[in-house]
């Protein structure tokens, strides 16, 4: 990692497996000797509200749980409008974002009271708030695998393939069996591989 502390925000909507995703990443890095602090807010927001985890990674010391505004190095967003919301506050010109393209509409949107931003405009906005943004159809692929919740692991696969954080199949496997259970390893590793594959075309385009 090129910065200490390295600041990661995992953003999404309640029920998307946000908290678990940040815990798995944290466990992988702790097992490699990093001092990791994760800040969460959950409670009422579990009921379909915005959720956000702050993951702070350091080789030197245990940082506090809150990333200051503009200091995110990486944003993993499980929902595109949440990506924009988080980047507007925590992003800077060097922030990288990995964004799941599938929108989750709030009831104000589904009920027709407010409009959800149009896709291209939203992607443009996310690009303008980052140095590099990757867009993945993670939920679509997770649904093909039979469970939308796997989108969070697909996103972690993408982070790994982009070479942003030192996450590998074997260290993730260990973290999954520690945080979840050994029965869950196989399906999650498949999702991890899907994430690596999904981002590969976008990375090769950069080269």
């Amino acid at each position, binding site marked *: 990692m090129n910065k200490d502390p390295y600041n990661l925000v995992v953003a999404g909507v309640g029920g998307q497996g946000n908290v678990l995703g940040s815990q798995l990443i944290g466990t992988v890095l702790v097992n490699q000797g990093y001092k*990791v602090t994760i800040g969460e807010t*959950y409670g009422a927001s579990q009921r379909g509200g915005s959720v956000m985890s702050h993951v702070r990674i350091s080789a030197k010391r245990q940082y506090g749980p809150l990333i*200051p505004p503009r200091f995110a190095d990486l944003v993993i967003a499980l929902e595109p409008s949440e990506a924009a919301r988080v980047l*507007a506050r925590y992003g800077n010109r060097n922030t990288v974002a990995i964004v799941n393209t599938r929108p989750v509409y709030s009831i*104000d949107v589904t009920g027709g009271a407010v409009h959800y931003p149009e896709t291209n405009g939203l992607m443009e906005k996310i690009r303008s*708030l980052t140095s590099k943004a990757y867009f993945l159809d993670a939920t679509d692929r997770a649904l093909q695998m039979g469970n939308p919740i796997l989108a969070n692991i697909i996103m972690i696969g993408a982070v790994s393939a982009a070479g942003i954080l030192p996450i590998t199949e074997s260290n993730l496997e260990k973290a999954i069996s520690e945080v979840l259970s050994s029965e869950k390893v196989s399906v999650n590793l498949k999702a991890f591989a899907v994430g690596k594959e999904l981002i590969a075309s976008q990375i090769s385009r950069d080269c």
Partner: protein
Amino acid sequence: MSGNEGIAQGAYEYGVRLASAYPGTPSTEILEYIGERYPDIKAGWAPNEKVALEVAAGAAYGGSRAMACMKHVGLNVAADPFMTLSYTGVNGGLVIVVCDDPEMHSSQNEQDTRNFAKFGKVPCLEPSDSQEAKDLIGEALRISEEFDTPVILRSATRVSHSMSLVETKPRTEGLRELGLKKDPMKFVMLPAMARKRHPVVEQRLKDVAAFAETFPYNKVIMGDDSLGIISSGITFQYAREAFPNVSFLKLGMVWPLPEKMIRDFASKVKRIVIIEELDPFIEEAIRLMGIKVEGKELTGLCGELSPEKVEKALTGSSKAKSIGPIDIDVPLRPPNMCPGCPHRATFTALKKNKVYVAGDIGCYTLGALPPVGMLDNCLCMGAGIGIASGLDRSLGDLARGKAVAVIGDSTFFHSGMTPLLELAYNGGSTTVVIMDNRTTAMTGAQPHPGTGFTLRQDPTISANIEKLAEAFGFKRIRTINPYNVKDTEKVIGEELEAAEPSLIIARAPCALLKTERILPDKPLKIEAELCKGCKSCINTGCPALEFVKIEEPKEGEKRKGYSKINELLCVGCRTCQEVCKFDCIKEA
């Protein structure tokens, strides 16, 4: 580990033999972890925080190390035993874990628990990360036994729900001999005995203050002497990140304070700033010592702090430079009731009856938000029934047949039983709806005395609300399935007309519960051609329903759009089907 895991691990390592709690964010997970991981600790959910503290007090009286856990407002409920427990003291160590919620992520107020420590003349420790959360449980128990006092461990959302590294150790047992010991002069607080105990309490506070001078978790970190920051808990982390090179006095014990240590620190630095969230608790105490400090004029009284806010408070600016105003224009995402939630069905029926609703605390509080908008007040746990009774009896005809109290099952067992008794006792015509979803849903589905299961999922009694109300003297008690919205509407209407108190139990398990499932888990379907676009279903506020606008209407088409069901979210609760006037919602 999270701070809450650290606290649970601390209970294990330092020999806690009994733990009791009522769920409340951000404290809930402490007892859940104890239930899952540490079979050596006797643990169970109490109906409310007052009982939890009394159960823990009983364990401590018998020589056991004990713990009671609650959120900040839980200590209000437990305030009665707390204040006099200070007089009786303990025997085995007793730690009261209280988790504050600055910024009110999941709370109705942001009261500062340190005031209770001062009020009750009880020591208060405050951890700043998960390691300290664990360690300070050990210190709290040691102080409790050494000074014969209950001790508060004050956490906060950002400690309880943040994760950091913790080193674990094996379990050690408490020091006190276990058993029933008679000592009425100490434990029976009749006036004559209490008068003798009060001076003991005052002397104890002085003794703990002297101990605080050498307490290893009160520590000075000398750096640049132009600025000295006095801080504690999570705010210490923020301050240290914002100003890594200045001098710090970090307090692990925030009551009583180490006066000599503070004076000594003050003499070594040029400027002193107190960084603390919420009330000027440390600041006022230090000002009383006659020491010139800055504090709340810089940091403010409301909400939580952050590294950025601390930096701005002291320097007027922040390294975190804005990259210019950003208009992201994305809609807000307020929380709401889940697809298939039985509360939505009940609220839909209440809305049809056009009533005023005295609310309570639980998932159903979300019924206040649009488009449901059916909760007209919400004060504290268990308040709704009493408030409805007060409205009904004071307003007479102005409220008759128009006011309803709603309360969940767990909240009812927490503090709804006594106001229900008041209602039966004093009469009136209030209608109470108990929204019984068979769990404590808002905090993540904890069992309670009505569910038939304990913390560790062992089978137990299931308290019967109908029989309880009958024993209280209620004559009108009706149990309904709220998903039958039309029937529910009718039953509510009939009970509103009754001239005496009535109780409706709207019983259907939480849509997230895996155990007691009555939902079909098959999505419904809307026949788009039949839909008139009246939005009756949309106005129930179900996240599984979507209104599709018609951009180019066909000739003669009057509707502006039609409703559609998201098959991934719909669990088939039928609430929308019940409110549809055109019979266009069908089983798929």
